[in-house]
């Protein structure tokens, strides 16, 4: 299990840092990237099993990055985390199925919850 590689993508440095530290404490090898383009480059040199990515909200190109990942690395599981929430007229955190990812997680979340999702997806 400890050989599993994770890739954390978030534009917030503190978020990247704390996730990396938390996940490393759980025994994963963790790479980080600040955006989708950087994430693709990292993935190509050191492929991760699970991608944990933020979606820039709102009206972001985060979905394009996900599409690119899906195309190039179909075996990589994707977990989307976002601070978005559901409102009457606009849905800022769509269902995972709708955007073609494996799981979604709304910020803030307990690290244990994230770890559960990761282990479920990579089992």
């Amino acid at each position, binding site marked *: 299990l400890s050989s599993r590689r994770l890739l954390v993508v978030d534009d917030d440095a503190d978020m990247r840092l704390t996730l990396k*530290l938390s996940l490393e404490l759980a025994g994963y090898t963790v790479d980080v990237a600040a955006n989708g383009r950087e994430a693709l480059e990292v993935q190509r040199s050191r492929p991760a099993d699970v991608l944990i990515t933020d979606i820039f909200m*709102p009206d972001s190109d985060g979905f394009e990055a996900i599409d690119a990942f899906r195309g190039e690395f179909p075996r990589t599981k994707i977990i989307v985390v976002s601070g978005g929430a559901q409102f009457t007229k606009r849905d800022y955190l769509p269902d995972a199925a709708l955007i073609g990812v494996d799981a979604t997680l709304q910020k803030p979340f307990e690290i244990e919850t994230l770890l559960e999702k990761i282990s479920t997806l990579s089992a």
Partner: protein
Amino acid sequence: MRLHPQLSLLVAGAVAPVLVLAVAAGVLLVRHERQTLQHEAIGRTQSAMSAVDAEIRGHFTTVQALATSRSLESGNIPAFYDEAQRVLRSQPDWLTVRLALATETPLFDTAVALGAALGPIGELNTFRQAVATRQPVIGDVDTTGARPVVRMRMPVVVDGIVRYVITVRLAPESFADMLHQQRLPDSWVIALADRNRRFIARLPPVPSGRMVSESFRAAIDHAPNGWFQGSTLEGTRTYTPYVTSQQSGWVMGIAIPASTVDAAANRTLIGMGAGIAAALALALLLGWYMSRRIAGPVAALAHATAAMGEGKDVHVPGPIRIDEIARLNDALRAASEAVRERSALQEREKQALQASDRAKDEFLAMLSHELRNPLAALTAAAHVIKLAPSGTEAAIKARGVIERQTKHMARLIGDLLDISRVAMGKVALERERFNLAKTVADVIQVWRSSGRLERHFVSLGASAVWVDADRARVEQVFSNLLDNALKFTPPGKRITVSVGPEDEHAVLRVTDEGEGMTPDATERMFDLFVQGERGLDRAAGGLGVGLALVKRLTELHGGRVSAVSAGAGQGTTFTVVLPSVDPSAEQARAPFDLAPRGATRQVLIVEDNDDTRAMLHEALAFSGHDVREARDGQSGLALAAEKTPDVALIDIGLPDLDGYEVARRLRAAPGGRSIGLVAITGYGQPEDQKRAFEAGFDAHLTKPVAPERLKQVMAGLR
């Protein structure tokens, strides 16, 4: 009912009484004309009659003279015969003179010799009348003889008794002369008749003694003087005035053809009829014209009103000459304008409502995102601290994250509370009089010290200007503007702040070289919850309340704020205008110093790459240094020989001498030991740095040179 017939009716109604009046006047006029003609004819008749009477009196006078003859008085008949013969010759109208005894015995007739046999005296009535009345008498036409005659009887009184009667026989035609003298039109008839209704004379002539017309006789029988309508002997219809002489009992009549009389009346009636017809025609024409003038624009207005209902333009072609209709047109236009404005307003309000709805939605999403993100980092950090042994690098880093993120959240929440307090009017300004330029300079200094301005070139141009304001709030306004400029301006670009007096106002400007915005966006950007496009950096995020806060705080101070941008990528200038005041005497005396910008140094750049040299020059000059530049080692050394620089930035890869050589020579030159030497290289390998220090360099910069790194290096030099 349509307008046209109504107007025609109106005009006709107005004309009708006039017409009635005109007809009445016409009738009166005709009658008057006829009366005038009648009077005139009667006058002429009377004057003709008077002439006849005068003629008769003339005859009487002549006979009277004969009657007073001596010879007659003395009974000398032969002498009187001669006398009578003489007088007869002088009177052309006289046919004969006869003398008879009052006892009705004839004595002589001038027509025959004295003593010859004599005829009868003739009609005796006049004879006897003359004897009885002792007055001369004129008789009527007598047609019993060879020719018609009129007898004149003159009684001769001798010794108080009527002894003789002189009879003069007159030719009736002789009176025709008097009729001629009236000079009547040829178509008229003038006639003199005797007491027996027989013609004495007439024009045109008829035989004397002929009976007058039936109608004439009936008229005379009816009244001695008057006017009748009848027919002449020739059968012409006439109007005839006539008079009877008091003296002779004769009747004079002038017959005017009815056609002459009626022609005048007819002329009047025809003229009047034509006038009435013309007036009616004019009325109808006027009615038609007026109705066209009114009905035309009214119809056009009706059309325009219908168009207005369909939301089209209201347009009435051509000028309207009737004020009321023009006013109606104006009112209609105004109404149409108002309707259009109202619908435009409603549309704008609807859109504004929708936009505000959307902004609120986005704000909630953003708020959720902005608060959840730091919470997520905090949760993760807490997790790390829980698991990682204290003192380990992970634990230390996690503590840093917690510190930063709580501060960040505190700021967000502070902003939120501020904006709601301002919105609810709960912010009380603590006004004081202070120098806005000094406050702005202080804020910049604090930010510079904290390193927040490190990645941009921030410059300040300030002149003292005094405001009466809440210093903390004004600082907040400026901080928000500066924060905004930093967020939207890429690193390495400049942000220019200026503050000073302009026309009684204190004006603060913050100009960035950032992303700029469309004119539409500049209008909306002060609205609550509106965000600029997000940059790559999360730091650019925010709640979208900063500029709204700036606007509300500025307005609370009685000022205004505006944003101008030449467009996307062209940067933006924010301008805050506040009312300025005079400083107190004490404040005015205090010298105004801007926060120090750092010492000015003489800097020499030796660099062959144009872009790098220009960038360095700009950055250094911006920081207030005196900058000179050279493209190669030799000219660099020459410039240094002219004036020894405080700092020299030297590229290693120069075309002639290499950078190490230049550094060695500068150091060796007089005063060269105190020069701060900075090497610029394309490579950051430790060996390069080592070589540089060996050549005498104090510091080392790797291309591309980041401004903040340049500032650090400059600050690190002596």
